[in-house]
């Protein structure tokens, strides 16, 4: 049997990969890709949050937001140190990579407009993170990552609850209800895009075959909807999705994917789109991709330049 078949069979039967010598090249590449996406997603969540950090209503809120940011950096750190143990040069990855090559979600290339959007960011995007990483925690065949995800799982739940508190509180204030709805209007579908292309369009998935994830994209999207929609309904926020009793699943009330206007942060629900075009939009990056990556890289680059300068 070829190594690929051996390994796939073993991991499907519960074998835990503990080192490079347990992997074939395909597993290693799939794992590295996954970890780079996770690391970039966690780290690049910080710059958008910082765009409204100063608008925290109270000092307590500010300190809570910082605690969440600290957790995110910690989660990024986990992914990057695992990559280092797999032979990746992390200094180059973090401080020499061009902005457009980072693998964070398109949603993170946007500034937030107000504190409410920070709440929706936590409630929706951290929920997506919780769903994805929770699945990895449950299923992943890579031992070092499985063990590291204990901390992540615990902390992401706290983040999404923080978002829910901000949203629930705001919905009780007549002056803020409209802000919540406006935020949800652009961030709900953004969150759904985190889970990738529809299953019917994917030919095969190395991640599933090697048990780097357990559920498919659509299954994970459903999982997200199964808590996000009831929550939004419970606080009186309108969302473009509902539970269909006949199909026994959550369905969207608008075409998905559909076109997005990045300037006005608005979904063009009368213009359905293809996943190919969505990927093209992702590759074009959002408006603040460059600025956000540069913010992360600033200190390292400044010191590097000063090292070369004469005394």
């Amino acid at each position, binding site marked *: 049997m070829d190594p690929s078949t051996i390994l796939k069979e073993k991991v499907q039967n519960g074998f835990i990969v503990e080192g490079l010598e347990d992997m074939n090249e395909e597993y290693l590449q799939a794992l590295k890709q996954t970890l780079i996406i996770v690391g970039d997603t966690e*780290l690049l969540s*910080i*710059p958008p949050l*910082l765009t409204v*950090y100063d608008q925290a209503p*109270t*000092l307590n809120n*500010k*300190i809570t937001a*910082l*605690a969440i*940011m*600290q957790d995110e*950096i*910690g989660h*990024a*750190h986990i992914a*990057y140190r695992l990559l280092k143990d797999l032979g990746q040069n992390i*200094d180059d990855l*973090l401080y020499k990579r061009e902005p457009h090559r980072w693998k964070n979600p398109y949603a993170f290339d946007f500034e937030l407009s107000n504190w409410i959007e920070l709440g929706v960011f936590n409630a929706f995007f951290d929920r997506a993170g919780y769903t994805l990483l929770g699945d990895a925690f449950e299923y992943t065949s890579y031992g070092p990552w499985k063990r590291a995800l204990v901390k992540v799982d615990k902390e992401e739940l706290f983040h999404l609850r923080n978002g829910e508190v901000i949203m629930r509180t705001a919905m009780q204030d007549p002056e803020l209800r409209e802000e919540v709805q406006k935020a949800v209007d652009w961030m709900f579908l953004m969150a759904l895009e985190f889970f990738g292309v529809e299953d019917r369009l994917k030919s095969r998935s190395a991640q599933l075959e090697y048990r780097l994830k357990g559920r498919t994209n659509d299954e994970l999207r459903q999982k997200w909807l199964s808590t996000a929609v009831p929550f939004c309904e419970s606080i009186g926020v309108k969302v473009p999705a509902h539970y269909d009793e006949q199909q026994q699943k959550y369905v969207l009330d608008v075409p998905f994917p559909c076109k997005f206007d990045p300037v006005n942060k608005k979904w063009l629900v009368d213009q359905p789109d293809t996943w190919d075009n969505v990927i093209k939009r992702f590759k074009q990056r959002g408006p603040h991709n460059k600025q956000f990556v540069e*913010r*992360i*890289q*600033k*200190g*390292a680059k*400044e*010191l590097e330049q*000063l*090292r*070369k*300068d*004469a*005394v």
Partner: protein
Amino acid sequence: MNHTQREVHALTELLETIADHKYVLGDRLVEVGVSGPNIEATLAAIAMAQGELGHARLLYNWCFDLRGIRGKKAEIYGQTGKAFTSIVNVNNWITLIAALYATNLAIDIVWQSFLQANHPAVTSRIQKLIREQQDHLIYAKSWAYELRHEQGAIPSRFAQALNHTVNEVYVWLTEIEKKEELQTEGYLPMNINLANQFKEHLKEVAAESLVQMN
């Protein structure tokens, strides 16, 4: 102001100044710290920012108590204007470490002096602050040492940045020494020499030469 009012006023001014330093430091640890040169240093900066802001809040609330303001405390939205200019002007990693190191060192020296005097109204309030600040000091000292021994223009740039904060610290510590009310009331020990203690500590990062003697 009567006798006790003058002493309490001096204490309140001192505590509020420390609160201001910590509030602005907390803000800079976020805005500049997020651009740290590696992930561990960045994470630690955000963690310490929470600590500094938390301490600032405790100190501002203590000042409200000393001023006799009872009931729900006002929300904190900014410093009262007494923070070192060199902290306010922190705009990159080097100036951040310089400000973090010199300020935390100075505050620790002041807290240790308070502990020495052991005034009942003070000791129990500052023990937690001292304990929680120790990791910040270790971090700042390590980074100060690293930057002092780096390559190219870094050591001289760091020396320059440290010079700015050290001068402000030195003036501040000297002013505290001269506030007799703090000593007569027993908040601080008699004949304290905070500025010299600070200068001695600078030797740990080979920076004692930066203090300018009047």
